[in-house]
């Protein structure tokens, strides 16, 4: 037997497109036995065997047959493919809705899995939280669904000792502000929610640190663009995470931009340039005329200071914001630093006092009226007695100390330090008559508040606890010492009346309340120390308002002086200046957006957030609740 490989085209079977090379062989043999062996081998290798006819016509006939067969097979394959693509096309149209259905069914079954099966009643029992105002809707839905199927589903309200989850309904505007409050901690059930106030105070404190009309306007326009385009599906459905972060906070950015424009006008900064909307309150001409500033004199002195004591130099305070002359002055930081530091302290004390006052709502709502007297009043007295007095001194000095007495102007800082040390500096003039007496009284009063804060609530709670448990003892309502000692032994159960843990339930007369005095006292001690030391450190912390606004102003000024100013003062010929301004402005715009808008914006955002989360919220907010996560088919936005 011999065989020869035939050179022919490599045939590729049309199945699955896997290119397989087929070889064609011509095998010739002598004799039947060899033929059978050859056949076995070819069978083994799954070869297609065709007998080689002697006649040419027979060979052509076989060839034609084979070609017809392959043609038919090709047609069949083509038909099958077309049919397949039709079916798949139909399925593709139906597939999304099927997927949704399957997801829904899976969610329903997962929820049903959490119910417990009651064998006796042959039903599923589930305990769930439901908002009270939604209960009628729930009843309605259950009625409707049961009427169709024939089985009834009922809902009962049961009393519960656990703390319920918190549900705060928001619309798309308030959602972002609630989001930043919840990022710190979801509020406890029924505690006061700082979010409505945060809607304004957060953008405001951001704007204090970011104040610039130009930058605020850019921020506002960017946010406005997002808000106006918010319903477009291309914008809503974008998957880029950074974009989604900015888009989610579009209303936040809108308000931040708006307030930044306002504080920019007050700081009188528009891309670090001041504007003279009103005429300046300082008159250089008056100073020059009265001091005899001739041209020769000016040529000799590169730097001269206006003196407010000279008549006609200082006319009036600028009616809206900072006077534009300060942006031309070389000592403008001296003035601005003093202004911004005092502003930060004033804003800080007011913000913190507001936080303490919000605690009143908590005390009243949870029925803990003793805390009004034993915690709120001492806290407010401490805060306002010391730092409220500082604010008073600042404002008093602004109103009463004028340029005439500038040389011996009292230093508030020295006064404040001496107030705590009960000493005095002979070189520091008092601000007003009787200042020492007032200051000593305030410090003594504030110090007296500390033991009230420390001991007031624990002692009151202990007294109240004893009073409640006394009638239960078999010895009857006899208020003698022996009775007190006996009543403490029979205590069993649950909640310690920690001053921070507001239990949402009524002050438990049904419950057996265990009262561990040392625990309560420890808790109150920590709370007191935190508040008193926090008063000082938190007030200082608000100085970041000054620091960041200074940084922003300086960065913006540097950018103008080093980039734009160079371009604008390039040359007197129109052509040169215009040509140079194009790249200069490009650089200015890029750096403004990158450094001042993005970097400073994020920085101010972060610090305003920190001020809210720590300095404001630790006066009243516990944030130890959990959110209601209801079963819903809606996709979370």
């Amino acid at each position: 037997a011999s065989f020869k490989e035939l050179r022919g085209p490599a045939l590729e079977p049309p199945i699955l497109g896997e290119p397989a090379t087929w070889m064609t062989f011509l095998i010739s043999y002598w004799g039947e036995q060899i033929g059978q062996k050859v056949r076995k081998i070819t069978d083994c290798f799954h070869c297609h065997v065709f007998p080689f006819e002697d006649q040419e016509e027979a060979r052509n006939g076989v060839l034609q047959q084979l070609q017809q067969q392959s043609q038919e097979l090709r047609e069949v394959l083509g038909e099958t493919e077309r049919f397949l693509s039709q079916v798949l096309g139909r399925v593709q149209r139906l597939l999304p809705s099927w997927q949704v259905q399957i997801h829904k069914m899976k969610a329903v079954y997962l929820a049903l899995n959490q119910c417990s099966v009651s064998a006796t009643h042959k039903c599923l029992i589930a305990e769930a939280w439901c908002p009270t105002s939604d209960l009628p809707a729930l009843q309605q839905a259950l009625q409707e669904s049961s009427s169709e199927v024939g089985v009834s589903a009922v809902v009962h309200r049961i009393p519960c000792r656990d703390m319920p989850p918190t549900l705060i309904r928001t619309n798309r505007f308030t959602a972002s502000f609630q989001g930043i409050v919840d990022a710190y901690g979801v509020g406890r059930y029924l505690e006061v929610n700082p979010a409505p106030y945060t809607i304004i105070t957060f953008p405001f404190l951001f704007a204090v640190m970011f104040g610039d009309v130009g930058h605020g306007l850019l921020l506002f326009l960017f946010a406005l663009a997002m808000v106006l385009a918010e319903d477009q599906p291309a914008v809503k459905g974008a998957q880029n995470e950074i974009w989604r972060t900015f888009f989610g906070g579009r209303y936040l950015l809108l308000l931040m931009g708006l307030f930044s424009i306002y504080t920019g006008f007050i700081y009188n900064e528009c891309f670090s340039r001041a504007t003279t909307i009103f005429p300046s309150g300082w008159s250089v001409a008056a100073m020059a005329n009265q001091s005899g500033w001739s041209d020769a004199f000016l040529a000799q002195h590169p730097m001269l200071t206006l003196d407010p004591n000279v008549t006609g130099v200082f006319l009036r305070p600028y009616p809206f914001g900072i006077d534009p002359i300060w942006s031309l002055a070389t000592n403008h930081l001296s003035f601005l630093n003093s202004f911004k530091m005092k502003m930060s302290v004033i804003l800080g004390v007011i913000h913190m006092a507001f936080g303490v006052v919000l605690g009143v709502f908590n005390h009243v709502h949870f029925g803990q009226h003793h805390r009004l007297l034993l915690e709120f009043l001492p806290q407010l007295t401490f805060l306002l007695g010391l730092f409220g007095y500082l604010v008073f001194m600042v404002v008093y000095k602004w109103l009463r100390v004028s340029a005439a007495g500038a040389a011996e102007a009292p230093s508030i800082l020295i006064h404040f330090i001496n107030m705590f040390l009960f000493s005095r500096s002979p070189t520091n003039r008092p601000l007003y008559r009787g200042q020492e007496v007032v200051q000593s009284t305030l410090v003594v009063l504030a110090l007296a508040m500390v033991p009230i804060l420390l001991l007031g609530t624990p002692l009151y709670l202990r007294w109240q606890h004893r009073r409640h448990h006394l009638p239960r003892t078999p010895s009857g309502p006899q208020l003698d010492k022996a009775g007190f000692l006996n009543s403490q032994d029979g205590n069993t159960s649950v909640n310690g009346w920690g001053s921070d843990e507001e239990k949402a339930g009524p002050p438990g007369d049904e419950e057996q309340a265990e009262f561990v005095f040392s625990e309560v006292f420890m808790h109150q001690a920590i709370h007191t120390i935190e508040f008193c030391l926090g008063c000082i450190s938190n007030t200082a912390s608000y100085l970041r308002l000054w620091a960041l606004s200074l940084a922003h102003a300086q960065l913006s000024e540097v950018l103008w002086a080093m980039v734009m100013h160079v371009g604008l003062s390039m040359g007197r010929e129109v052509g040169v200046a215009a040509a140079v301004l194009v790249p200069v402005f490009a650089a200015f715009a890029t750096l403004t957006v990158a450094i001042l808008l993005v970097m400073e914006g994020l920085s101010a955002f972060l610090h305003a957030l920190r001020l809210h989360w720590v300095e404001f919220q630790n006066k009243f907010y516990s944030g130890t609740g959990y959110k209601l996560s209801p079963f819903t088919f809606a996709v979370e936005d």
Partner: protein
Amino acid sequence: MTAHSFALPVIVFTTFWGLIGIAGPWFVPKGPNRGVIITVLVTTAVCCYLFWLIAILAQLNPLFGPQLKNETIWYVRFLWE
């Protein structure tokens, strides 16, 4: 003159923010958002008024004046009069 120039802005701005913060809440239409809008109006009025007030009080009695370069004095002297 100085007293007038201080009293006028004070009256104007106090009235303006007073209208927004005190009179505004009465005109908010009834609806689910009424409480939030009133809070927003009052907080805005308080914050903005306070900020403006601090700025003007800080400049009421300046203890020192601006220090200017002689070039600045040369042109401001005639430009701003």
